């Protein structure tokens, strides 16, 4: 592993529900509202599709932050998905906090298809927090962070 100190380039995984937040991200794009390139979006049908395992997987693989975006409560395309997601993620985040993982590394936000501005603001804000926190050293798999070498 290279030991020279590089500028911290975080890795952020965003799970966006197909109906609201992914469309919100599209609108941010159409409106040319920039947010950092370190944020990569995974499209899921609904925020309730996000298994806590996926969040942990992202951290395992070296993510510095994970954000889940879904329809506003009450607006879920599937009527109740985001309500379940809300409970699950609250519990997951609380557990991560209990294990001493920085609270700011995880976030849930509700972004509608009309909220391109909000999408960009939320992502910029989240990225800023991750930059402040720096590299995720508490929850990750060393095997994934290192490049295999002799």
């Amino acid at each position: 592993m290279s030991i020279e100190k590089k500028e911290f380039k975080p890795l952020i995984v965003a799970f966006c529900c197909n109906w609201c937040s992914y469309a919100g991200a599209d609108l941010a794009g159409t409106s040319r509202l920039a947010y950092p390139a370190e944020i990569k979006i995974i499209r899921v049908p609904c925020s309730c599709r996000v298994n806590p395992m996926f969040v942990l997987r992202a951290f395992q693989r070296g993510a510095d932050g994970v954000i889940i975006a879904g329809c506003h409560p009450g607006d879920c395309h599937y009527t109740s998905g985001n309500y379940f997601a809300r409970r699950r993620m609250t519990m997951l985040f609380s557990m991560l906090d209990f294990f001493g993982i920085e609270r700011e590394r995880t976030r849930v936000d509700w972004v509608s298809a009309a909220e391109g501005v909000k999408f960009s603001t939320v992502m910029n804000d989240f990225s800023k927090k991750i930059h402040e926190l720096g590299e995720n050293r508490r929850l990750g798999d060393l095997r994934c962070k290192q490049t295999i070498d002799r």
Partner: protein
Amino acid sequence: MQRIGVFVCWCGTNIAATVDIDTVVEAMKREPGVVHSSDYQYMCSEAGQSRIRNAIKEHNLTGIVVCACSPRMHETTFRKAAKAAGLNEFMVEIANIREHCAWIHKDRTEATEKAVVLARTAVAKLNLNKPLTPGTSDVVKRALVIGGGIAGIQSALDIAEAGYQVDIVEKEPTIGGKMAQLDKTFPTLDCAACILTPKMVEAAQHDNINLITYSEVDSVSGFVGNFTVKIRKKARSVKADICSGCGICTEKCPSKKAKSEFNMGLNNRSAIYIPFAQAIPNVPVIDRDQCIKFKTGKCGLCAKVCPADAIDFSQQDEIIEQKYGAVVLATGFKPIKLDNFDEYSYAASQDVITSLELERIMNAAGPTGGKLLRPSDKKHPHTMVFVQCVGSRDTTGCGKTYCSKICCMYTAKHAMLIREKYPDIDVHVFYIDVRTPGKNFDEFYRRAAEDYGVNYIKGMVGKVAPTNGKLMVQGSDLIADRQVIIEADMVVLATAIEPDQTAKSLATMLTASIDTNNFFTEAHPKLRPVESPTAGVFLSGVCQGPKDIPETVAQASAAAVKVVGLLSKDKLVSNPCVAGSNELLCNGCSNCQHVCPYGAIDYVEKEFRINGKIKIRRVAQVNEAVCQGCGACTVVCPSGAMDLKGFTNQQIMAEVDAICR
């Protein structure tokens, strides 16, 4: 191993200006599974699509990744192109390098790097894609309408007119619902019976409509296009097929002490009765709680006088089972009970009545023959007070939090009709707000105040005290900033309305959701207002929320159109991206069933051969025709037995891995 082709779109300069296309194309060539990687200016153009089609054939591709604009834009386009080249349309993945990359990043290196990551993420997912085939299911060409009020009748008529069989299930002995009880209708003041009864007759005589009155839905199983419904036909004690409706039995019946439901208990009916003259079907029913024959075993007068020999005391409830392709809920409403509002002395004085009771009093076919008389002494009233918002807009738990919507208008109607017919009666209306959005509604209300001299008082009634045969009404007049006391002869309460009590059990049977007030929830509050979230179940009338007659009729027709649209299909094609349970892993715990918003998951006891032994296990099965693919079930499944096609655990984790590489 897949043979993947990657197609990178320039989108003119939209993408190419910030993303270095060559870098992406070259990077993808090194990705596992990729056998072809190329680019084009406009992938979505016919020329672009033909390049994709050719490449699929030339390189024998098993799947394609298109790096272009949002999948919300052109996913369908590229799926069609792939299909045209013989590929399964679900072997297509889109990397959104325009909206999510090129358009939001200025730095070319940064944008190119991100585009590579997004592309390889799509490749990683596609490597795990499996061809998916949409499921199909047959559609039973018959609809069930639950509730025979104006909403149900209208829906049924429209569906029947389109050529489909419709059954109306009505729990009362006659169809007609609440509208049949009304006198006149706002804002045109047509007589309700005059406009409703022809519709009732039309429904009864329609070849495609089958009325199942005095009946309730017992159970529902199945799913969109194929519901199986058990209907309980309550014993009428009268053979409907031979009864001529002559009514002799009702005249001769010696038990005449029962309160007439139709007339809101304002007068009595016999134990064997027809709710009202124009009832459909015009067949009496025996109220077994009141009937002397049923109570003591003696009497049987009705049977003796019946010229058609239609009385059958031994009749039992009958269960009919029928299959339907669609269900319309039109269960309507009822006024709330006023137990929590003793300040209005509703229970203490006969002269304090609800608006629906007033409808009956003013109706020519009503208990007073249409004469406005005080119920207590049958005298002509001189002063009448109307109170608005009784139990509506109440957040204390005594009443309902919502606005009942129809009260402002029917009160204006009542006030106007009274002033017109009896100009000697002073009419006062206490109101919080007068809400009149609707065609000709405000004009109507103003006419009541301006032309008919109805005294509208901005304020509420605090107390109604029966005193010396009068009603002392103490209220506030906020405009004058004073308390007013009116000595009234009658007080009419604009009682809040609530969904009929049958809504709740039906919601459970149909897995149609209801809100905290027991109104049925619509699939989308704006865009799908007449559909329930459960496929194949539609909403008509007040069961979805308070509304007046024109709105109800409009929604009823809208629901009918949705039903007709559904029944016109021979097969339903379902989204193949649905949940599926790996039965070998399933524990049978029911977690998934609890969270499914569509009731798409059933459990079955199934035989398995495990290590040579036969074992019976309880396992989940997803009804693919009902599942909408949200994935809620996948997360609550502890063993990971439940997965979502098209968005499997493995696929999403592969995406995570590809991003975090």
